[in-house]
């Protein structure tokens, strides 16, 4: 997975095992980044689980954290 996405890791994508995060400073760039990632996945025939995906959000839960433009916070649903 890291090998597949190597060219775009760090500039706008992160991979942690089976979780891919795509992040961009503007909406226009984000659409472009998304299409790059999706076309790489398609080319290498990776399948994603639609139910577990979230597209173009300003706030997203990832690896037990909630990530938004304000920064990173702990995911409240993981704390009891």
């Amino acid at each position: 997975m890291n090998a597949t996405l190597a060219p775009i890791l760090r500039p706008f994508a992160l991979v942690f095992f089976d979780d891919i995060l795509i992040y961009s400073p503007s909406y226009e760039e984000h659409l472009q980044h998304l299409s790059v990632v999706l076309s790489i996945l398609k080319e290498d025939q990776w399948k994603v689980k639609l139910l577990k995906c979230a597209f173009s959000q300003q706030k997203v839960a990832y690896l037990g954290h909630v990530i938004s433009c304000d920064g990173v916070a702990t995911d409240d649903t993981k704390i009891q």
Partner: protein
Amino acid sequence: MIPLILGARPVSIRPYRVAPELKDETECQVQDLCARGVIVHSDSTFSSPVLLVKKTDVTVDDVGDSLPVQTWRFVADYRHLNALTVKSKYPLQVIDEILHELSRSKWFSKLELKAEYHQIRLAPGEEHKTAFQTHDGNYDFKVCLD
């Protein structure tokens, strides 16, 4: 690849006992894995035991409410195989370090791969090391396991 340490002998562990009511479940899961090409019948000298672990899934009913359902996760116990495997050193990132990269970003998407490891083919010739045994036969995995 599953490189074994020098002088390693094939792992051969007697299957665990399975409750009679779980035999059907085991057969069902094995058939499904076969049908999807994840496992094949085996004549390997290796044999790791398998077991079923309880897990809670969520389904959606007719009215659109989510309901928890009890299902079984089919797992192979590779502790013995792991003990004989030469470990690879791939840098695992620390989550905090990963998240540090995100400053200045405003838009996010996340994608999750479908049953990730089942999408990775094992190096041909290595399959026999993954052999496992159930009450009704021997099988090898053809893909990486989770």
